[in-house]
């Protein structure tokens, strides 16, 4: 079973709802009431799935608080190896429901973030951006590939409101905090793209 052999306890506060996993004629939908870091997100999903499999119930909602979690590497293994069916016909990758700090990730963003271990940094950076730029009206992550240099990175696209001097001041503060928060070379895979209204 998924949790066999695990000694780690994770206290989760997210709530998963309306799931069903496994056979092709079932589906899975999971939502969280709060933003969870990726590892907790994965673990809460696993907890929800295991609980569901164990009880085989049609429960509408189940709290994962206090459920025994599993090691992170197992969560990563699960993400790569378990297939989830959204409905009777569409097979979707697990990454489809992936998100960091409430920001949904596309498969490409998710893959690059995993490949360069950026997830925990993104989980810190997104709140940093929302804190530092006082009027953020939109924030999304975009995968970019530069064919001139063959480099990949994630663009954190923000729409902000403010005057030029104010934005420059906020940007300066953001960059200095970003440099303290994210070490090299992870920094080279993340770029801020601001759109000022």
């Amino acid at each position: 079973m998924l949790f066999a052999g695990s000694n780690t306890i994770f206290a989760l506060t997210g709530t998963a709802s309306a799931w069903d996993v496994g056979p092709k004629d079932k589906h899975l939908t999971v939502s969280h009431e709060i933003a969870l870091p990726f590892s907790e997100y994965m673990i809460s999903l696993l907890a929800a799935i295991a609980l569901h499999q164990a009880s085989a119930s049609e429960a509408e909602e189940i709290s994962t608080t206090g459920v025994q979690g599993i090691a992170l590497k197992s969560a990563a293994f699960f993400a790569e190896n378990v297939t989830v069916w959204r409905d009777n016909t569409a097979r979707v990758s697990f990454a489809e429901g992936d998100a960091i700090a409430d920001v949904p990730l596309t498969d490409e963003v998710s893959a690059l973030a995993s490949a360069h271990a950026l997830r925990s940094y993104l989980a810190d950076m997104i709140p940093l951006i929302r804190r530092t730029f006082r009027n953020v009206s939109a924030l999304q992550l975009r995968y970019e590939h530069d064919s001139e240099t063959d480099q990949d990175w994630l663009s954190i696209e923000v729409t902000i409101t403010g005057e030029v001097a104010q934005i420059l001041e906020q940007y300066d503060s953001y960059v200095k905090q970003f440099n303290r928060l994210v070490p090299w070379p992870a920094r080279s895979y993340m770029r801020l793209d601001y759109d000022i209204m």
Partner: protein
Amino acid sequence: MDPKDFLTLAERLVIEGTKTANLRTATSRANYATHHVGAHVLKQLNLTVPRGPQAHQEVAGLLQNSGDEDIKAIGTGLQDLYGARRRADYELGNQEPEKLKTVRVHVAHARQMIASLETCLAEPKRSKVGAAIRSWDQQRKTAISSAARKPWTEQLTVPPFTAMA
């Protein structure tokens, strides 16, 4: 030519008005002005900057590993501005690079970064920043060359997955 002439041009394009080509070109020139001043400063500090497109990330990377908070911020700022320059030059269907206020921030930021970069050419910053970047560059080259000599099995940094019971 003096790379700061690119910045002068960018500033003129922003003042001249809101033609989309002006605004896109202003972001592009602001990026190149900052990049070339950065490359010039690094060369003055006895560092090698490659030619061609790879130079952009190299200049930003070296500055980000300068050990000086302000210069590191320029490395990151340059990296962000490079992304904006790509969008301005290539994403013609995207209207974001045509927003006057955004472009004004790009150009004003480039002006600030260039002024800050030039402080690296005077002592005591010159010696301190130069030594820090050269030391990081040397460590990086040693690590790359040492990794290249190892058999591939020893280059693995991620332990293989252990199946759970």
